[in-house]
């Protein structure tokens, strides 16, 4: 045994690296690899696993990651030579649609056989073949059963349950102005229940909720930590926490929605063969299975993968076949931003007042409901406004275009004063100061 601790000087130098002669030698020699440059906003838990598996499958390539959030990816891919990027891989349908319009992509060089182009009412692959979904995420409710039990709260199954005043103070809702995944979350009940009823539901839900912003706190922290009992969320944050032992369940409502992530090869890809290899890998059975790792927990887009997954793993294709997922993401993509902004003006900005008005309304008699309820629940904007392409463009471009910002800010002001007027009238009717 002690021979290990008395190695020859030569062995010691070779093994421990002291004054090691540098350069390739012996079995450690290797042919140079070629970079595949991937622009993405995936976290390390996703990137590192795909990186390791791809480089094992394709040892001639080395993945080089350029990290950019979607709003920052657009200018990066607009620069000369598209920044040397081969593949764009991210969850931002709007950015993909915009880049396709700008001819930033080439037709996908891979077969999409076995990859359905839609989930229920949502189209997930580009019909013209410039980009394809690489995974989808669903939406629903994170629930802490122990919290519900200790607060004697009934279980929840669907959106309308959340409007019950019994849940007042027990919900956490992401602020859609601050939290990137939340605008789609807001639009799901607006599509499922219709515009007017959807906004009425949101008003009551918002009055029961506390909002979480873009700080470092996740809904899974709030619910898992027992600070709130129910949290609305995109699924993978929570599913990952559950898979790693958090005392939380995730409930998919009867009507949910999906948010696809996509993959595309840039028009100016310096390494198109490498780009093809990476896209092939991400969409392959092996690549799609990586998505189910407990630290990731996304929903694969290759239905054949679900057969081998743990019991209870959510299958959006099966759910859609049973009539779920009627959500139209094509319609939602454009209007998500104005809807989020209106939500912010109607519920987040005057939240304390909204909570108080609903509290007083629940304590009031039936006559008050006839007059006050419409004032609290009326949509802050017309559905035609949310679907107006000019308004949608203004909200999409407001970060970069002062004219767009002026239009968007003006609309927000209008919606805010509309809401404030209604709340003031409701307060007067309820005798609130």
């Amino acid at each position, binding site marked *: *045994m002690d021979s290990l601790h008395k190695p020859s000087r030569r062995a010691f130098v070779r*093994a421990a690296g002291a004054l090691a002669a540098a350069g390739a030698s012996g079995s450690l020699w290797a042919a140079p690899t070629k970079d595949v440059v991937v622009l993405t906003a995936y976290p390390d838990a996703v990137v590192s696993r795909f990186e390791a598996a791809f480089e094992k499958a394709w040892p001639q390539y080395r993945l080089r990651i350029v*990290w950019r959030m979607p709003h920052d990816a657009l200018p990066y891919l607009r620069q000369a030579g598209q920044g040397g990027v081969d593949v764009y891989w991210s969850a931002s349908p709007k950015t993909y649609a915009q880049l396709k319009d700008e001819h930033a992509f080439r037709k996908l060089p891979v077969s999409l056989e076995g990859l359905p182009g839609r989930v229920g009412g949502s189209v997930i692959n580009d019909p013209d073949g410039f980009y394809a979904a690489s995974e989808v995420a669903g939406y629903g409710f994170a629930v802490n059963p122990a919290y519900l039990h200790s607060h004697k709260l009934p279980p929840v199954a669907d959106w309308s349950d959340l409007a019950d005043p019994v849940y007042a103070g027990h919900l956490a809702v992401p602020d859609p102005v601050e939290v990137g995944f939340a605008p789609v979350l807001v639009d799901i009940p607006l599509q499922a229940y219709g515009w007017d009823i959807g906004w009425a539901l949101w008003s009551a839900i918002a009055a029961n909720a506390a909002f979480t912003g873009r700080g470092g706190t996740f809904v899974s922290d709030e619910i898992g930590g027992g600070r709130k009992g129910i949290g609305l969320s995109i699924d993978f944050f929570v599913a990952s926490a559950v898979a790693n032992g958090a005392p939380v369940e995730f409930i998919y409502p009867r009507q949910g929605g999906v948010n696809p992530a996509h993959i595309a090869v840039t028009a100016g890809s310096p390494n198109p063969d490498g780009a093809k290899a990476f896209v092939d890998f991400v969409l392959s059975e092996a690549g799609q299975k990586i998505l189910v790792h407990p630290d990731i927990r996304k929903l694969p887009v290759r239905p054949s993968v679900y057969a081998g997954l743990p019991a209870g793993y959510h299958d959006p294709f099966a759910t859609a076949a049973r009539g779920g997922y009627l959500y139209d993401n094509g319609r939602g993509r454009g209007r998500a931003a104005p809807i989020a902004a209106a939500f912010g003006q109607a519920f987040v900005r005057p939240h304390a007042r909204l909570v108080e008005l609903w509290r007083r309304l629940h304590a009031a008699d039936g006559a008050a409901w006839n007059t006050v309820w419409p004032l609290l629940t009326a949509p802050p904007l017309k559905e035609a406004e949310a679907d107006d392409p000019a308004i949608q463009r203004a909200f999409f471009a407001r970060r970069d275009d002062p004219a767009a910002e002026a239009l968007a800010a003006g609309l927000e002001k209008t919606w805010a004063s509309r809401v404030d007027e209604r709340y003031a009238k409701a307060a007067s009717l309820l005798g609130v100061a």
Partner: protein
Amino acid sequence: MRRLGFLLLVCGVLAGVGARASADWQVMDAGREAFARPLDGLTDAERERFFRGRSLFNQSWVVAPAKDDQVDGLGPLYNRLACISCHARNGRGLPPEQPDERMQSMLVRLSVAGRGPHGGPRPHPAYGDQFNEEGIPGVPGEGRIRLGWVESKHRLADGEVVSLRRPRLAFTELGYGAIGKVLTSPRVGQQVVGMGLLDAVSAQALAALAAERKADGVKGRVNQVWNPETAALEAGRFGYKANMPTLRAQIAGAFLGDLGITSDLHPAQNCTAVQSACRQTPNGGTPELSARQLDDVEFYLAHLAVPARRNADSEVVRRGEALFAASGCAQCHRPSLSTGASPRFPRLAGQTIAPYTDLLIHDMGPGLADGRSDFAASGREWRTPPLWGIGLTQTISEQQRYLHDGRARSLSEAILWHGGEAKVARRRFAALPAQERRALLAFLESL
């Protein structure tokens, strides 16, 4: 054998101190979130700060200039995009298993013979003090490192044969010319729980530990290292050779060395004189990591709780605990330390903790030596690594890899690599019957 029995009695009592330690710094969680829990009782404002720090620790940094100007400035040369890349789930990193695999959570320290600024290692003139494989677009990375393993078989006293491996490195695709003779030291990322508590162990306490008389030829020294914040030499606490004096200095050093992110403690980019493209790229602010961001990351890491022990009262674990002490392991892997004053983070002050380290550097013999000195630490000296949480390695990291370069694939292998001042303890372990060895390992698994 009679002497061993006496030691079992005495050291078993000493080792038991850890099990009775205050629980304020512990969390009851043996799952994959066990290294991610805050200390109990944080206020709402502290929780917000903790989670802000977590976001920054998990953040993938962005090439400057960018609209996300709070998190831009990656590189120009770097190893990985995020802190979490090398400390997945706040646990330890893993080395490549094959030469074709990249170093995802490992890095290689570099230096040349002689002393550098303030008495630390002397950086390589072209490649600096750490090999950065990656460069941002327009800046060549420093090259590739291929890591292979050399296996050797060894027979224990009871006939069991174990295979041990040591790493072998080669540089390829060098970006800045021949590297020549260079001292190298491969390192995997370390687990990051309990660092605030270790930061709060006073220099006087470390000096007292070093001054204690110990059996079996064990000594232990305090490394004296440069603190860029105070511009003075101070007691080292962090890093595999205790070459960092404080948690804050450790964080700022890693931000610069691993991600290429500057801070008030390290305002200059990590480019050498010959790396001209590196020196001409735009930065992400001066500094790139603001003082508030550094505060938040420090707060986060300082307030990560340590998982409580599991099965601590089972008979086999208690037997293993006594054997751990009797074999001499607890002379360095101290079952009990006390924290001193902690003016910035008062929750950490005055705690009795069970980190199973003395934070001292020890000669670990030629088998583990990297031949690269670091301040007062010689090429054979390493800091005693804390063992708290080590039993959750498989759960957190999904593999078991131990020691500074991840060469050990089990706790047994890690123990069998101990030499130098730990030679006697290792021999005692190797001489134990298999059942006793298993008991000692069961104790380690309970930490």
